[in-house]
């Protein structure tokens, strides 16, 4: 079936906004060809070079002068394995060495969202980072684990198989630390991970039936082995199943022995609760082989129909609208379920959503989140991004602090949240700062052509065309020109301040509803 959709909608929803280059490639290969490529990106990071050549200044003092650091640190370290990153923990280096990793991953994200060819993958990376949220700002040990989490867990599986992604997350140092499973022990297990596994990662809150049923066997379908949802008893038992799943963080394991310090996953048999369990109406015999209990829980939750509904609905909310119609969700659920043993389950599901009628009609339904606002401005206005702490600081204050959202829900994905007065102020300051290059992270090249226009309203019109891809409504150009204290018909290119005014025009065009939404 031919895939007919407005290229700008396609790029606003399945990419971080249109860029001249991307519009060109869709014109050349068609929406079909573009989507097919995006669904099957190469493993290699096409931004690796750009990231490795980016440096972030790192400076801290120390009691011993030789341990002081004052240098530009390359982001190339992101590609190293976790045991390399964990050396800052092993050696007990300054906290700045730990937080650097969060800064570095966030900077790499500001590069990939703008410059990666594999935009759909980056959109899904953002989705899964929120779905499987960790807070690397609140805990600097999570920051050390973040590069591996970003690359080897989230990006690696972003378009892959959900069950594989789920296990990679469960074993990751970032999630083990964030939801405390690494300190969970048989006898009185820590329920944090198990609870959010059910509520946020898989079956979802609509399937939490605790207010209705106190006993597992009362849950409808339980006696047939197919419970409709879960209750606290399932959480308790799943928490027991994951005891012993931990990371090599130097913890003592008895008899004077300690785990190594590498940040890698490890299963500690001594910590595991080996007795029989029952989760989602399924009996687990005692003394299963290593990891078997936890894996069984992951199998059960990944296969549960509520998970398909919950995750597909969330994907549709991200890619279509806050209130996706039932047909697109149902179509996604069908493909998700049919493809659940396939390595490209997520890609197939996303394709189904993208080819839906609801998607085709979804122009402008979503308010851009700050990361999307930033990246789409950079892409439309032709900024070659060289991230700086200033840019990152602005994004951190925008309401969407990358890898720094506290609760395990991830950032809200509903329009109203992003339109509060605090958010609106930050949206405007983000756009003005990008246009003015306030953080020395790269200026908007598109301003040059705008500044060459002879008259004020022509300049405003050119800015609008650049940012929105259509002719500006006359009342918008008039509003911008007059609002800036200029007059229509006034000469523009001959002004000394034409370039800074042109940059501002790009920002004001980006403040229009058409640019603020996707």
């Amino acid at each position, binding site marked *: 079936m031919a895939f007919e959709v407005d290229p700008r909608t396609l790029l606003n929803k399945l990419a971080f906004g249109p860029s001249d280059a991307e519009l060109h490639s869709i014109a050349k290969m068609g929406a079909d060809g573009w989507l097919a490529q995006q669904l099957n990106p190469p493993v290699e990071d096409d931004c690796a070079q750009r990231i490795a050549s980016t440096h972030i200044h790192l400076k801290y003092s120390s009691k011993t002068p030789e341990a002081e650091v004052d240098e530009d640190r390359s982001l190339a370290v992101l590609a190293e394995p976790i045991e390399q990153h964990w050396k800052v923990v092993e050696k007990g280096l300054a906290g700045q060495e730990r937080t650097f990793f969060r800064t570095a991953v966030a900077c790499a994200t500001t590069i990939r969202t703008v410059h990666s060819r594999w935009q759909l993958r980056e959109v899904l990376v953002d989705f899964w980072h929120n779905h499987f949220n960790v807070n690397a700002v609140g805990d600097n040990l999570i920051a050390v684990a973040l590069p591996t989490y970003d690359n080897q867990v989230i990006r690696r599986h972003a378009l892959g198989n959900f069950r594989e992604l789920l296990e990679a997350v469960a074993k990751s140092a970032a999630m083990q630390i964030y*939801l*405390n499973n690494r*300190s*969970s*022990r048989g*006898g*009185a*297990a*820590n*329920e*944090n991970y198990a*609870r959010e596994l059910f*509520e946020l990662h898989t079956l979802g*809150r609509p399937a*939490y039936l*605790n*207010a209705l049923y*106190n006993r597992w066997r009362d849950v409808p379908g339980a006696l047939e082995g197919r419970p409709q949802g879960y209750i*606290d008893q399932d*959480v308790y038992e799943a928490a027991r199943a994951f005891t012993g799943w931990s990371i090599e963080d130097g913890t003592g394991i008895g008899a004077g022995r300690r785990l190594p310090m590498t940040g890698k996953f490890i299963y500690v048999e001594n910590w595991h609760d080996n007795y029989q369990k029952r989760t989602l109406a399924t009996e687990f015999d005692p003394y299963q082989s290593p990891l078997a209990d936890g894996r069984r829980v992951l199998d059960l939750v990944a296969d549960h129909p509520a998970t398909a509904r919950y995750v597909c609905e969330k994907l549709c909310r991200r890619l279509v609208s806050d209130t996706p119609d039932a047909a697109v969700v149902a179509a996604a659920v069908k493909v998700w379920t049919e493809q659940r043993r396939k390595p490209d389950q997520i890609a197939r599901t996303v394709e189904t959503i993208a080819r839906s009628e609801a998607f085709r009609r979804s122009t402008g339904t979503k*308010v851009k989140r700050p990361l999307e606002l930033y990246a789409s401005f950079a892409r439309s206005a032709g900024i070659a991004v060289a991230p700086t702490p200033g840019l990152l600081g602005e994004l951190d204050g925008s*309401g969407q602090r990358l890898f720094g959202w*506290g*609760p395990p*829900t991830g950032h*809200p994905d509903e*329009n*109203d*949240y*992003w*339109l*509060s*007065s*605090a*958010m*609106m*102020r*930050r949206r*405007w*300051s983000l756009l*003005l*700062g990008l246009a003015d290059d306030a953080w020395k992270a790269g200026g908007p090249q598109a301003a040059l052509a705008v500044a060459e226009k002879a008259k004020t309203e022509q300049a405003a019109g050119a800015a609008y065309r650049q940012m929105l891809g259509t002719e500006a409504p006359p009342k*918008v150009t*008039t*509003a*911008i020109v*007059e*609002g*800036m*204290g200029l007059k229509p018909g006034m000469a523009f290119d001959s002004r000394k301040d034409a370039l800074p005014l042109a940059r*501002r025009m790009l*920002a*004001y065009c980006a*403040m*229009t*509803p058409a640019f*603020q*939404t996707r």
Partner: protein
Amino acid sequence: MLIRRHFLAASTALVLAPSVRAFAAPASPPPATLAHRPILVTVFLRGGMDSLGVVAPVDDRDYVADRPPEMRLLADGDKPALRLDGGPSGLDFRMHPEMSALRELYQDKRVALVHASGLDNGTRSHFGAQELIERGIANPDETAHVSGGWMARWLAATGSGQQPAFATISGVPDELANHSNTICAADLRGGMNLPGGKQALSVLNHLYGNGSGPIELATRRTLAGIALIDGPLRQPDGKVMPYKPAGDATYGDTEIGRSLEAVARVIRMDVNVRAFAVDMGGWDTHENQPPRLANLVGQLSRALAAFHTDLHDQMDRIVLVVMSEFGRRLRSNKSNGTDHGHAGLTIVSAPRIAGGRIHGTWPGLSSDRLDNAVDLAMTTDVRSILAELMMGPLNTPDAANGVFPRFVPKKVGLLA
């Protein structure tokens, strides 16, 4: 000592001259000036405060048996918990040793506690429980006939549905859902300016003077909020005026400190904001709880005390309620933490409050008295507390029915 004198002075005034308080006036005509209309401040402790680690009967056998010493309040030792008079059941209820400032307010009878209070729903989900409490309902299906947050409904019921409310977080909290005129600012120390200044204001006014899409409406609301709040913050030279709390109150450079200071500042501006929603995060202590909880309760206690000191001359019209989505499990886990529980602790400060007492029925901690045999049972619905405050010091007796339709509040006895 200075702080303490303040409290004493204010509380004495309260006892001796109740008849001159605005709230003592009969329900009839509204108070003459806006300055005397009651103000509601809610503090939501996100993550589930371990109420049994904050206020608990240290001599309760089950309490002692079910938690190791480092996870519970102690009657003696290096840091004994602070004794509280007025506890139920003849038990030795005590407060966390880091909360001496709040305990002073309690002893001065300016603050009351309601233990075993919370949500009438068995959920142990943070997000489920928060949403239900903030919307003032007991079950998700009630959203079919009860819309928005309970604070939003209260504002509407009091005829202030169009007046601004203020939230000290980036996004509008569920308590104020549907109250579109909510101003959000986490901190006012840097002001609440418009990025881009006059030029941006002029362009935005040209672009959004009318239009009814969500972005246009949000823009106009934001510009109005900036005009209301930012102007009074500035000195003639345009710089943000440093804030000097009364009585040398120290809020602390913490989330709760900055937030309550911002609230005090807006109250002092007297711009007819009557509802404030404050958040404090970090209470989800599944792991390594003792030092984390000590830190949190210390910050909370100091900020609450500073608020009372700073606004000593305003407290006769301020109702402040501190709540959390749930308490935590009686038995701790092996991570030195506690998992999600049920009933929790509500802290109330209000004029004419029956302070210095722990209200509500204490259900006990033996396993047959626990909810699901593991968690503190709920004996006071948080809505009963709020409804009683509406009928009393908030001076909006007709509001409670509309705010909590189909809910029949029970008497808590919070009012002296």
